[in-house]
């Protein structure tokens, strides 16, 4: 690590743009944040780690910008410098909306392994060159990615993980009953009937039937 001081946002932008002309600053409430093309992320992370002291990969996650949004998925990396104590956020949009992929950074930080497995599990982002991309929180063979916006809060009826048990008991994993809320009113709604607080996700409640398989 040559320079250990966490550079301020503008300097970091200049540093990134010198190597990656496509890098742009991203609006952020707190830490320096940058948008990058997906393919350049590993090289940019390596640059930040080895030449600017951002040695801790704090978090890898993804955001689903809605079913209709184009691009639909963005992957977010947070780095922290253990010596200069600054954070930096890198964001890259997934090229494909149907089969979102991102490059794995397990070769840079071993700790990225579980973060990427979690992002794959809950958001369905495929990390290329990941050594062991399995589900981590949901069980192996679970068919959905629950943090996607088209997945209902209540859940979807799914076979039990153990098919032998499922055969024997004829049971399955059922959606949660949503009649107890959480209740939120839509803001700015002037129609009193519509403004009444109700479950934000109405994929299954007393007004509409249980969702079938997506």
């Amino acid at each position, binding site marked *: 690590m040559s320079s250990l001081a966490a550079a301020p946002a503008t300097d970091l932008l200049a540093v990134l743009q010198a190597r990656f002309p496509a890098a742009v600053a991203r609006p952020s*409430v*707190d830490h320096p*944040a940058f948008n990058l093309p997906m393919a350049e992320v590993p090289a940019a992370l390596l640059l930040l780690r080895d030449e600017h002291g951002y040695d801790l990969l704090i978090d890898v996650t993804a955001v689903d910008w809605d079913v209709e949004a184009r691009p639909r998925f963005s992957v977010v990396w947070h780095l922290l410098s253990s010596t200069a104590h600054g954070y930096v956020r890198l964001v890259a949009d997934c090229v494909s909306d149907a089969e979102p992929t991102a490059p794995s950074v397990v070769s840079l930080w071993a*700790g990225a392994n579980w973060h990427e497995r979690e992002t794959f599990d809950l958001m369905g982002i495929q990390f290329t060159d990941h050594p062991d991309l399995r589900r981590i929180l949901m069980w192996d063979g679970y068919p959905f990615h629950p943090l996607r916006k088209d997945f209902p809060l209540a859940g979807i009826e799914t076979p039990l993980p153990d098919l032998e048990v499922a055969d024997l008991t004829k049971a399955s994993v059922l959606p949660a009953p949503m009649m107890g809320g959480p209740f939120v009113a839509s803001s700015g709604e002037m129609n009193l009937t519509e403004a009444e607080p109700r479950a934000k996700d109405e994929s299954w409640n007393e007004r509409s039937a249980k969702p079938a398989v997506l």
Partner: protein
Amino acid sequence: MPTDYAFPDSAAKTANAIEAPEFQTEKMSLSMGPSHPSTHGVLRLQLELDGEIVTGCDPVLGYLHRGDEKIAENMTYNQFVPYTDRLDYLAPLANNVAYACAVERLAKLEVPERCQAIRVICSEMARVSAHLLGLGAYGIDVGAWAIFLYTFTEREKLYKLFEELTGARFTTSYTRIGGVARDVPEGWVEKVDAFCDQFLPILENILNLLTRNKIFIDRTQGVGVISKADALAYGLTGPNLRGSGVPLDLRKDKPYSGYERYEFDVAIGAHGDCFDRYMVRGEEMRQSVRIIKQAIKSFPKGDWYAKDAVRIFAPRKDKVLTSMEELINNFMITTEGPQMPAGEVYFEAEVPKGALGFFIVSKGGGVPYRMKIRSPSFCNLSILPKVCQGNLVSDVVSILGSLDFVMGECDR
């Protein structure tokens, strides 16, 4: 038998030497957990064993996954406060504070000094309480039952204080965005002070039972060594990172909630083994008491909520019943949630287990668009496959206890 890893301690080395080639048979697969006393909850380790030596370890998580992030996207910022209790349920107050600080960053709210001091006292009491439990459970794991009884006696005193402050022993839900639920009760601060005074000598007694205990040292020293480079590569935080000699403490390095006003030392380990992590936690309790004492000594007068928080806090009940504007305000906050500006914010606080982070993506309105919870236990556990390799099965128990994780937070 050629292996690609070094045996970290002498016991494992001896066990390996005894296993002469003529006794070598096939490897055994052993499922440890999810219901196992030393996995502290519902963690399952899929171990691959060569006799008594662990040659592979695959942690299986998710038994306590409740979809907290999905739930957060479907309720208002205020409604989510009780869910933060259930992350690290051994230090709910510290989680409450972390969440409140994260949303306040988004709302650009500054809380007054009294509120900050209350939050610091709460966080540090939660730290002492969590470390006491961690220490007690660790004692049981490695065969020192008595520790548990002493630490739980002290913890009970803390729980009485929590109950007096928040009305609940366990699920406190004490902080609000822009303040805390209510001011400290009369005489409570003095009681905390008195607790600290009597706690320090007892803490020394408890630690003395372990620090020079031959059995405890044999089971922890040189076991589960995590190098500085590994600790950083795996994103370890909190006492586990500091046990490996990296002096990163967010209270010191990225001060929030007025931590910069207090004097305290950051303890670090030299070897990165289980014993060092135990020593770091022991010292952290002393430092926590030191912080609490300072916060009480300079306990500021004034408000315990931010003046700008009127758009977030539900108004006072007597005002709601008598004034039209407050009634409307109360209705809007309850139904639509506190209105937040659009933006992206990431905030981490130093909770007992490490750095608990909230990444909030807001599109405006009363409900977060996306909330990612970065849990320290999840990251701390990701090093298990590496650190368990080459150890004895009984050392796995020792390593698990020294990492001091909570599955409620790991699985979310």
